[in-house]
């Protein structure tokens, strides 16, 4: 079609704001929140507080990563723990066996996760909805069982990360949790930036078309198989980074701590309750769920009555009943209507 289309009838010239761009106010609020997060661990110096924040950032990052495929492209994955675990295992294995820096292991783990994601995503490229979710559960469990029996990577005994002198180059700190805090915050920022860039670009539009239906995506000229793989691979890479971080932070991993289904479920919950399909939703979700779970376990868990789990479950039920768009999703909806 030639370019003359439209010019002849460009009658009403109402300017159209782009709803997916960030406004000056949002940018300012974001910067303020970031400064607050930078200062926070200096004010509250308790080690447990920092631990809770670190774990919160970590799950927030995983939630953001999940959101790229689950929220935007509509591919519900319950197998994210596999990527998390592969990230943890790759860096740890490379460090133990070849003395490779965990920073290189971080990238290697991401690449291996992304390749595996593509290898498993390709044959699943026609699966949608529940069927895709079931396939991811199976995938996650297969990976866990393989690692449980794989002698070279320690099988069920897991891997203990060797103690090195604390330094940024070694990705290891013994005297304080503060460096871990800032590293994880940096990772989270990276994930949020990636998610923002993806969601506002051609790729993000194509992901949403794919979520709507494969048919409409094909009509619009979208190579559905390829873009689905992009979504899975980006998601896998970021999740794997969080896994490497976890290994360097806890210094011991085994399949039952980094590859189990509850981790995958936790990631989905964080994203869904915060608000899938929004850049910051999973961050908000993690900020609510993870502290609640960590603190309720610390306060009530020792009694062995499961009160912490009851509280946790009640909250999840309440949010899903009253805020089906997730906390952040409902909030932005409210803001939009208020305008």
């Amino acid at each position: 079609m030639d370019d003359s289309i439209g010019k002849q009838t460009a009658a009403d010239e109402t300017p159209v704001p782009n709803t997916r761009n960030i406004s000056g106010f949002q940018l300012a609020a974001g910067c303020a929140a970031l400064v607050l997060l930078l200062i926070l661990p200096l004010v509250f110096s308790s080690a447990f507080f920092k631990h809770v924040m670190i774990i919160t950032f970590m799950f927030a990052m995983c939630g953001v990563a999940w959101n790229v495929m689950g929220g935007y492209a509509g591919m519900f994955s319950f197998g994210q723990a596999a990527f998390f675990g592969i990230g943890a295992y790759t860096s740890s294995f490379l460090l133990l066996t070849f003395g490779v820096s965990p920073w290189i292991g971080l990238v290697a783990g991401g690449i291996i996760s992304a390749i595996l994601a593509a290898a498993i995503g390709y044959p699943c490229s026609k699966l949608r909805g529940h069927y895709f979710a079931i396939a991811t559960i199976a995938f996650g469990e297969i990976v866990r069982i393989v690692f449980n029996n794989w002698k070279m990577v320690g099988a069920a005994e897991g891997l203990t990360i060797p103690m090195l002198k604390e330094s940024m180059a070694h990705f290891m700190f013994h005297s304080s949790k503060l460096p871990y805090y800032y590293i994880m915050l940096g990772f989270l920022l990276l994930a949020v930036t990636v998610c923002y860039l993806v969601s506002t670009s051609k790729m993000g539009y194509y992901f949403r078309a794919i979520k709507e239906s494969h048919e409409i995506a094909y009509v619009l000229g979208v190579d559905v198989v390829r873009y689905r793989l992009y979504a899975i691979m980006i998601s896998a890479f970021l999740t794997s980074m969080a896994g490497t971080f976890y290994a360097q932070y806890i210094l011991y991993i085994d399949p039952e701590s980094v590859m189990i289904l509850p981790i995958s479920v936790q990631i989905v919950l964080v994203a869904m309750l915060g608000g899938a399909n929004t850049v910051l939703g999973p961050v908000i979700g993690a900020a609510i769920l993870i502290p609640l779970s960590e603190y309720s376990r610390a306060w009530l868990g020792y009694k062995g009555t499961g009160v912490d789990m009851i509280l946790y479950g009640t909250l999840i039920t309440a949010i899903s009943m009253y805020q089906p768009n997730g906390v952040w999703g409902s909030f932005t909806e409210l803001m939009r209507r208020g305008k």
Partner: protein
Amino acid sequence: MSASLLLDVQGVSKFFGGLRANEDVSFQVNKGEIVSIIGPNGAGKSTLFSCITGFHHMDKGRVLFKGMDISNRKPHKIGKLGVVRTFQIAQVISDMTVLENVMTGSFLRHTRVPGARRKAEEILAFTGLKGKSNLNALALSISDKKRLEVSMALAMEPELLMLDESMAGLTLVELREMIELIRRVRDNGVTVVVVEHVMEAVMELSDRVVVLNSGRKIVEGPPKEVVANPEVIRAYLGDGYNAVRQ
């Protein structure tokens, strides 16, 4: 064949198990034409569309677009080559605004956001949806939704636009607007093929009409001749009604 031949459908057959959806259907579309495909329900019109645009794998036959064999290529590749279709039930992306829906189409030829946005706004002005750019796509009426679907297709800058019942369920006023829009699309250099039941639109728009019945092409010609054809009347109304009043 003349240089203006755009689409050449040669002997397309499609079977669903034992059911014959299309059998040996051939027709041609020249550049700048509006061609209608009509026929009773179940005649295989939508299936034919799907075969041409790669949504169904055809069992026999060939489809040439500008002399290039596009038979059984992937739908997104056929779209990229310049053949774009719409669906009988308007398909829009529900968690997007009208503008974003159209942008998803214009990304095909404009990789970056500002370019895609400019193209989308141009198209919305052309199709008369500009005032509704910011509405959620689901908030639109049936007629606006069909208009949006046409806008999304136009945003892909096709050479051949294939509309599957874009005029079903419209009021008379909306129908007039849609007829006028399709005509303007053609005047802007886009060749149009429509599947349509609304005879008023078919009669008014079409340069040529292809009639399908039970998967086969029975007649082809100018609209006035086609509606007077005894075979066409028999196909629609049954054997008892083969008398023709001129």
